């Protein structure tokens, strides 16, 4: 089973699960106007850039090298080998992400948060099918 499901109920949720949902704890949830909210200045949990692939020279060269290195024949003809690979990277990749979020929490930079707010407000309807691509455009303009 490579789908990581963290059971949070009953207090059994591990810290790795927390890092995955930090942005919810910090950016979602009920807000009561009469209450003061702790300053989140200095917290960089929310990064705007959801794009994994950034069109840049570095990315191009990295992909070219990766394609050169990849055994494409093996990959396309042996699906079993492929899923094994995916299973492996799921574990390590997920850990990498969790670590990234933790490091992000310790880093300074309030701009990202402010920007995230603005972006959240700009989204009229989260259900709109084009919301993802339109928010991308907003990022690029920002």
């Amino acid at each position, binding site marked *: 089973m490579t789908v990581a499901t963290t059971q949070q109920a009953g207090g059994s949720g591990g810290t790795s699960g927390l890092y995955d949902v930090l942005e919810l704890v910090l950016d979602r*949830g009920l807000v009561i106007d009469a209450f003061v909210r702790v300053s989140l200045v200095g917290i960089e949990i929310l990064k705007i850039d959801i794009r994994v692939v950034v069109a840049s020279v570095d990315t191009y*060269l990295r992909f070219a090298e990766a394609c050169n290195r990849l055994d*494409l024949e093996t990959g396309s003809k042996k699906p079993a080998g*492929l899923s094994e690979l995916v299973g492996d990277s799921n574990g390590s990749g997920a850990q990498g992400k969790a670590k990234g979020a933790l490091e992000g929490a310790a880093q300074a930079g309030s701009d990202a948060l402010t920007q995230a707010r603005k972006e959240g407000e700009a989204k009229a309807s989260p259900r709109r099918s084009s919301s*993802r691509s339109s928010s991308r455009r907003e990022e690029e303009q920002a």
Partner: protein
Amino acid sequence: MSTYVYGIADAGHPKLPDGIDGIGNPAHKVRVVRGGGLAALAGDAPEDLRPKRRDLLAHQHVLSEAGAGGTVLPMRFGSVAEDDSAVAAALEQHAEHYKERLRALCDRAEYNVKVQHDEDAVLRLVVAQDDALRALVESNRKAGGGSHEDKMRLGERVAAAVQAREAADAALVRDALEPRADALSDAPQSTGWIANLSFLVHRDAAAELANAVEELRQAHPHLVFRVNGPLPPYSFVDQGLVAAAGD
């Protein structure tokens, strides 16, 4: 002393985690503040409250404990009232609204689904699906990797193909999982995920959502899923649930 608030439940919540450890170092005990037929999970606010790892975890823990026993409206981290009476006043003032939200969210929890690409797998996929790209890869390889310009030309095309895949896969995941949930909320976007979605799911439908994720994972091995839940319904406390589920 100012009062930290974790969440709001109905006064009849059967198992409020009164007395467990909350935020602060050493931990302040959680207490219940009542008003307007509601119960707020509260505690002393630390003097120098900051979003520290330990306190974020404590906040989430208190809400998880409360959520295990009944419906709770989770507060955003870091909500502080002047004192307990200010909390009670806020409960009374908006009692009807909070009760409506508690009813709407009854027996439901948030499941957060994050999706990323397995890079090698997605590269294989885009190259395998595009003969021209494949030829370019082969010719570069024969040339020992190719010149800088060859690499740039290949890399740019591959990057464009992967980006297109990101958008397509994000839509694929959304469309496949949305029918399994009562509501969907776009979670804050963060680096590294091609999709970050929160679903409001009834207790009875949780297994169905998990199955749908598993089916996606089997069918699309280049997608890596991270599912977290059940969580307090952070993303759905302030939303019009009916409106979100109805369109």
